[in-house]
């Protein structure tokens, strides 16, 4: 079957062959899937009495980029925030169903959400640097973990800024405010801040929606580079972005149930190329061909 399924993305990154539709590489040799990082099954998220997201099941694999796409209000950000327990911060939010992280239930009572967030980093829609210097922004996560010698902090800050492709631009002004940077630089600073604590996973909630196309291209390049090291889950409004960077794509939509209550649902989840070339569901096809949303 898998004859022409080794795909080179627009940006020249050869996606791992394991990501072809049937888990075989270009030569048809069966290859094992990368280990499962998140195994979400039957996830419901309720805000107050409103069941906002229903029956979501998907798996996220190691060192892949998984994109969650769909129209506004379809619950993709809500699902993302379940993965590092940031929904705990939303008053009235309740999560049911199972979110397993390397086989361990993230919502088990003995799980410490602080530890979860240390291992699963997050980048937000709007760049949100702290009102501190560039250096302190990146060192923040390390400082809250505990005391470290200055030399180690310096090394880790440089490593993170280099990893976020920002070091050359800021190395001479580490003491300046994080707000002195441009929007795109601020977002890369937030990425540097997130990877400084060496997380296992990076969650990105529409990381480019506040950026111009050039800054977006830089962040996308960065994502592809980071995917060698991290598992990335990205929420995006931008279908081209999902097509450009992701290995797998989950398409969500907002629907009314029989009582007319609007809620988000996972429609289709598959290898990105399949979603964009040959979606199984009519609604996916309509969305990616621009017929709605």
């Amino acid at each position: 079957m898998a004859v022409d399924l080794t795909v080179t993305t627009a940006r020249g990154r050869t996606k791992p062959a394991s990501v072809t539709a049937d888990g075989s590489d270009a030569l048809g040799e069966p290859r094992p899937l990368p280990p499962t990082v998140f195994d979400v099954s039957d996830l419901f998220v309720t805000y107050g009495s409103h069941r906002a997201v229903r029956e979501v099941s998907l798996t996220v694999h190691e060192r892949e980029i998984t994109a969650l796409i769909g129209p506004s209000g379809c619950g993709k950000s809500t699902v993302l925030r379940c993965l590092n327990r940031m929904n705990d911060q939303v008053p009235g939010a309740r999560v049911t169903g199972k979110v397993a992280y390397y086989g361990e239930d993230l919502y088990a009572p003995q799980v410490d959400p602080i530890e979860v967030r240390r291992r699963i980093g997050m980048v937000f829609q709007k760049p949100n640097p702290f009102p501190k210097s560039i250096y302190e922004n990146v060192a923040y996560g390390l400082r809250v973990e505990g005391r470290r010698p200055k030399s180690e902090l310096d090394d880790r800050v440089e490593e993170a800024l280099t990893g976020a492709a920002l070091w050359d631009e800021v190395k001479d002004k580490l003491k300046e405010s994080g707000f002195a940077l441009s929007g795109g630089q601020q977002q890369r600073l937030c990425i540097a801040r997130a990877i400084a604590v060496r997380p296992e996973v990076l969650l990105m909630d529409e990381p480019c929606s506040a950026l111009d196309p050039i800054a977006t291209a830089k962040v996308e390049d960065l994502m592809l580079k980071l995917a060698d090291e991290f598992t990335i889950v990205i929420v995006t409004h931008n279908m081209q972005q999902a097509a450009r960077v992701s290995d797998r794509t989950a398409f969500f939509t907002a629907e009314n149930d029989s009582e007319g209550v609007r809620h988000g649902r996972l429609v289709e989840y598959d290898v990105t190329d399949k979603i964009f070339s040959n979606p199984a569901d009519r609604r996916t096809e309509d969305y990616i061909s621009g017929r709605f949303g």
Partner: protein
Amino acid sequence: MTTGETQKIREDRPRERRTTERTRLAVAGARAAGQGLYTPRSAKHRVTNTLFSAVLFLGLGTALVALTAIIGWALVEGWPRLDANLFLAGPSTINPEEAGFRTAIIGTVYVIGGVIALIVPLGVGAAIYLEEFADRERWYNRFIELNIQNLAGVPSIVFGILGLAFIVRGLGNFGFVAAAGSMTLALLVLPTVILASREAIRAVPSSVRNGSLALGATLWQTVWRNVLPAAAPGILTGVILGVARAIGEAAPLLLVGAVTFVVYDPSFFEGGYSVLPVQIYNYAKRPQEEFHVMAIAGVLVMLVVLMLINSFAIWLRNRYEKKW
């Protein structure tokens, strides 16, 4: 009618006649409306604008003139007594020429120092609890919130009676000492400080909190390392306002032992004490003219002390603001 005929009719009629009366009216109206945006304002607008500015300047002017008048008057009247003795000598009922405010200044510094030491941790702590940790669904948290707002409007003499009953006597049983004065005034200004600090904490955007939590910081680390530094300027403004009010208060202190005549330097936890406003009142009510001059000079002393304390707080605030 053929196309050719239509063409002919159009050419016959002058261009402007081709529009109906109504269309021309609409165009004229639209043009007038558009021009209104770019041409100078009408006379009516100018008058209203001038009037409004005048009212604003009148308000500002009244405040400035009143303030300058009071300070100027105090300077002129108190001038004969503006010397080192005013600050360094203790009070006297016998010779007003050599009397000063030394003990009252020390008393004020003690009382206000105590007030600051109490209101900063208590006020900021209460504000942090209410903003970051309290569950607003719980009735007791709403009850506390409501009462803090009410307390901010309670007359100061009520706090004086409270201080007398529970701090000087009763539970605290501290006696008539400067510490009791500090505690009473701290209770008086705490609501102001809490409300101002809450506003400042609330003004810190939630994106900063989320960013910190997402890095694996605890709520406490988030508050301590991120929210408080960002809110510090606003909190300090609240403290400045609270302290400014506390310095000028005489009524509640009269009840908790700021006795009016202290010859020896007071101490914080024992013996009688006095503060500047009470001392000023004491001089002002004496029959001799010389003491009235003393009282006026005392007003200037109080202003100097107030300005010193406030400029320190403002310096501190600017230091925090300047960072970012």
